């Protein structure tokens, strides 16, 4: 089964890689064919990637001594879920607005995270990265950390909710980059080919706002569930967890974005910078804090 999970992930990765290359080529080739093909391959890869996660979940739920929160307790599965959700949110964005060119700004981040997942597997068992995914999953299975917290159904929702919001923030980040390029060119009266092909400022501004508005309730709920859950298990100890604290900072940054955007009309460049800053905080929370938060650290191979 681990072999299947690894294989599905590997093919998903190769497909996503191909799709990202096609989206990047499209920026220069301007041929619709490239973006259409890229979109199809991306969709197919997302299905493989999702299947890989589903297999992992299925195995987890059939393990003796199964706990609902056992999954996503290692870097590989966490990165895998995060990157898949970025792709899924982008596919959603693309159905609403046929703006394939944004793929070049959003999808490389998903690919990067998938690459990091492979790197994690490689670090844990340094063979060829593709083959080592399987080894890693075996290893992770034997060392799977028992959750620090008692499990519950709500707890199982905590992680996917947060990752959905992170994925939407990642999309907003990519679109924010494109926005700033377009804005800069218009403001300085200099235009390149790219400027003439990027979506309008207005469209991108609204897309960023919509993504953040959709993600914020998920972030709030995910965070709230985590806190309620931790509070019921630890009492007040959750307050001292660095990840929880940092996540509250992330929450505050996006809350500030929404308030400034909708109540104080912070449209345009300042809003885009804020969405970029927000995602930087997300990355710190996601990548950095796990090393110092006991409750949120992931199993890595060396720890066996």
């Amino acid at each position, binding site marked *: 089964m681990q072999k299947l999970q690894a294989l599905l992930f590997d093919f998903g990765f190769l497909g996503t890689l191909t799709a990202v290359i096609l989206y990047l080529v499209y920026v220069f080739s301007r041929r619709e064919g490239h973006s259409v093909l890229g979109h199809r391959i991306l969709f197919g890869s997302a299905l493989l990637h999702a299947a890989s996660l589903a297999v992992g979940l299925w195995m987890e739920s059939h393990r003796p001594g199964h706990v609902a929160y056992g999954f996503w307790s290692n870097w590989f599965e966490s990165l895998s879920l995060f990157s898949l959700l970025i792709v899924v949110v982008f596919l959603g964005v693309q159905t609403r607005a046929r703006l394939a060119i944004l793929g070049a700004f959003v999808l490389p981040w998903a690919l990067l995270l998938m690459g990091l997942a492979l790197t994690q597997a490689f670090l844990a068992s340094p063979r060829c990265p593709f083959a080592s995914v399987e080894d890693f999953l075996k290893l992770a299975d034997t060392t799977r950390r028992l959750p620090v917290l008692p499990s519950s159904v709500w707890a199982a929702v905590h992680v996917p909710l947060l990752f959905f919001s992170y994925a939407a923030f990642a999309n907003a980040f990519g679109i924010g980059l494109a926005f700033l390029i377009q804005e800069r060119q218009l403001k300085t009266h200099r235009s390149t080919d790219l400027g003439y092909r990027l979506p309008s400022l207005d469209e991108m501004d609204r897309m960023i706002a919509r993504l953040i508005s959709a993600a914020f309730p998920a972030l709030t709920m995910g965070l709230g569930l985590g806190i309620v859950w931790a509070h019921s298990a630890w009492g007040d100890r959750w307050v001292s967890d660095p990840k929880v604290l940092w996540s509250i900072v992330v929450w505050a940054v996006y809350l500030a974005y929404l308030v400034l955007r909708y109540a104080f009309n912070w449209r*345009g460049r300042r809003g885009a910078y804020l969405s970029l800053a927000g995602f930087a905080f997300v990355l710190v929370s996601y990548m950095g804090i796990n090393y110092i938060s006991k409750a949120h650290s992931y199993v890595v191979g060396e720890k066996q």
Partner: protein
Amino acid sequence: MNRLRLVGLSHRTAPVEWRERLAVSDDRLPAFLDSLRFMVGAGEAVLLSTCNRVEVYAVTPPEGEAECLLRKSLLALHGDVSLDGSLYALEDEGAIRHLFRVAAGLDSLVVGEAEILGQVKRSYDQARQAASTGKLTNVLFQRAMYVGKSVRTETKISEGPTSVPSLAVSLAHRIFGELSECHALVVGAGAMAELAVRALKSQKVGRVVVANRTLEKAVAMAQQFGAHPTTFDALSRELVLADIVICSTGAKGTIFNRAAVAQALEERRGRPLFFIDIAVPRDVDPSVDELENVYLYNIDDLEGLVSESLGRRESEIARAGQLVDAKANEFAPWYDAWRRGTTAALRHHVRESFSVEGDPG
């Protein structure tokens, strides 16, 4: 063995007064094509007539006098033989290559312009309706249209705006996207402003307001544009509502200073404001450009961008020319086979996803 001949003149060889003398109106076209058959013995003929060129493509007997007869028929359109010196004549591969270059926009006044492709198609359709096309012209003109399309998709020859009005429209699109919900405010009435408004109107821009010092003048202009008239007293209010402001007054001082624009921005709730200042001296204080969410372009900015965009097109001419040459060479074996009365295979694939970016107006 019949051969393809081309005789014509274009903006490269003749001024517009001469070109217009040769223009053939639609109703006279069938008779003209018919006359070629009798006078020149042309089995097939297509007349490509635009404001920049008049060219006859004809399948004629091989003898040299056919060219002479073609020239004569063309000149007979106006009965003026003094134009003969500005006519050019090409045959066989030369004529094929020329048609491909024309279709690709390489021979146009504005390199890569999209209109010529439609004009080639129209000329061909008209000739076909007049039953003056045949095996060669059918294949050749279909081919020319395919070459015209693929050169435009594979090079940047028809990319980017080529005039100030079309640039203004494309900048507006880059700021606002769809223009149907945008309001335009026109202050003063210059010729360029009128062109810009027409270009915006063709993009279905929402409400257009025309402002002038006196209401009478504003009303007169508004009628011309299909717009709402107003006076300068209402400018501060209109600035809050407008998205695109086109200024071209003859005023000595500025019409919009920084403080006025900053105040309007407060009330605009963060919506961007696009100023097109084509007045000399300028109507909008240059420091307005420093304000957030304001995009101010004066006439120098606009002309600079247009010439930059034209320059980008020019830089693609060599590559586009190579592509045309390759397509012409690809066509040569088919043409030779046609002349020998046999057939050869012709590779043909037309890219489906294709769009021409045209100059509005």
